[in-house]
């Protein structure tokens, strides 16, 4: 049978996941010396690791070409649709926040507010919950710039330490939600390969606490 295939979000999440896999006893030398390869065996061919961009991890898992995936909750909230979210891995922690220029009265007045963000779906859902009409503008790069140059009244973005916001005279006025890395599974895979997936999930659960 083909080994389980796990899609990892390239970069920081990938590194921490590999450390976790090593901690539970899998040999990840091939991944550490990956060169330019994108599909790598782990342990004694126990499973395969695929390296992909965050949103693509979801796509691969959803279509069932990867059985499992490790991806941030931010990406799940923005792009997610149908898969199982099995485990909060507890690393990659940060938060979504609504931020504005210091001392501006965001909720005051009756005019429709403009929000700049890299996460239009998260932003839409957040303001829908408040029954608030907002104009959302998608920005690709540094979102902090938008309120400073007058494009937007506020931003919805990921905040880790808050130092970028501070340096640009912005402040968090509301926390949207907490974010961390999650283990996700394809719906059919969990049913067809229950035992293998549960075993790995339990081992990971034990080391993530």
């Amino acid at each position, binding site marked *: 049978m083909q080994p389980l295939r796990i899609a990892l979000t390239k970069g920081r999440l990938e590194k921490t996941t590999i450390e976790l896999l090593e901690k539970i006893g899998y040999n990840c030398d091939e991944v550490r010396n990956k060169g330019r390869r994108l599909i790598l065996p782990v342990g004694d061919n126990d499973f395969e690791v695929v390296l992909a961009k965050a949103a693509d991890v979801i*796509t691969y898992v*959803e*279509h*069932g*070409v990867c059985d499992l995936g490790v991806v941030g909750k931010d990406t799940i909230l923005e792009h997610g*649709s*149908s*898969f*199982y*979210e*099995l*485990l*909060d891995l507890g690393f990659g922690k940060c938060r979504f926040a609504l931020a504005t220029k210091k001392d501006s009265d965001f909720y005051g007045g009756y005019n429709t507010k403009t929000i700049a963000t890299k996460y239009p779906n998260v932003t839409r859902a957040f303001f829908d919950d408040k029954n608030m009409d907002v104009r959302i503008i998608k920005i690709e790069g540094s979102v902090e710039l938008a309120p400073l140059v007058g494009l937007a009244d506020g931003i919805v973005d990921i905040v880790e330490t808050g130092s970028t916001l501070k340096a640009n005279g912005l402040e968090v006025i509301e926390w949207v939600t907490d974010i961390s890395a*999650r283990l996700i*599974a*394809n*719906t*059919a*895979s*969990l*049913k*067809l390969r*229950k035992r293998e997936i549960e075993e790995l999930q339990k081992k990971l659960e034990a080391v993530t606490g």
Partner: protein
Amino acid sequence: MKKYLRITPEGTKDFLFAECAAMDDVCGRIENVFKTRGFKRVITPGIEFYDVFSLPCSGIAQEDMFKMTDNKGRLMVVRPDSTLPIARMVSSRLKNNVMPVRLYYKQAVYRNNPTLTGRRNEFMQMGVELIGVQGLRADLEVITTAIQAVKSVANDFRIELGHAEVFDALSDELSISEEYKEKIRQSIEGKNYSALNNLLDKLQPCRAVSAIRSLPSLFGGEEVFEQAREICSGTKAAQALDYLHQIYTSLLALGLGDKLIIDLGLVQRNDYYTGIVFTGYINGIGDAVLSGGRYDELLSEFDMPLGAAGFAIDTDAVTLKALSDGGSYSDKPDVLVFAEDGCEMQAIALVEQLCGEGKKAQFSVLSTLEETQAFAAQRGIAEVRICSR
């Protein structure tokens, strides 16, 4: 310049030759199962009034339907599902029919999925509905038909069973809003343990809360019942659980072994299903290929309170799998029959004779032998026969 002259709309495709052969094969096997089990085919219109699908229990989001208006300005949709139109049909055309009725359908449904996800917006579905009856026998009939249908097209499959009332009974014990209940349901459906825990932590701890907390992890074989019984004892869910166990025990006679799974976290379309629910998976297909269950309240929406159960199979997914498994759906003839001038009818008779003998023979419509031979070589047809005076 006509910009969209040569492409099909997103989420649709043409089916050619081997693809059609594979589809015919897959649908044929399933149809054979349905027919031998006594189900009779119905066809419903491709377009329906929006009202049929806007029922609160329909479980189909407004934005997922293709809509248009008729010449009176009434809102119409391109059929996004077959069960609701069948419920409409039964409540009108079959109102005075002897119940129960066994129906099956084989028709495409249409969904307006988000772009660039690779999902199909048009897909063929086959399914059955057993309407006008409730109880163990009816449920067994529908589930075993589903298993037989999946078996007819795949060897490596799983069928999972659940019961809509397990979750309904447990969540009814909590005094929470419908919205909150829906959030809990979604997190169970997605086996999203962390979201579920967050939601439940906000509630007063009680028996039902801890039972709901464990629902998504309650899937597997017989052992699930022992765990679940402990958790659900003294709640209304226990009754549903006993019934599910009864169904499961009956199905053991089929000797499916671990191909049969119990999943108490099976809570999809929970407003719609009222009893037993089930889904089917085939190895190599990343999504459920079959889903169904008992929906005893739907027909009341059409003023005809009748018990009903059924399921649908995504035959396009099964067809794709059959093709990628390299099934032989060759459309190539074995023999090409060329007629010299004046011998055409003789050649056509020969083709008929060869086909009667079980060979794939074809009458050459090209005018010279050279062209016929060249065509045969290009298509890799092994034999060219010549009819002459």
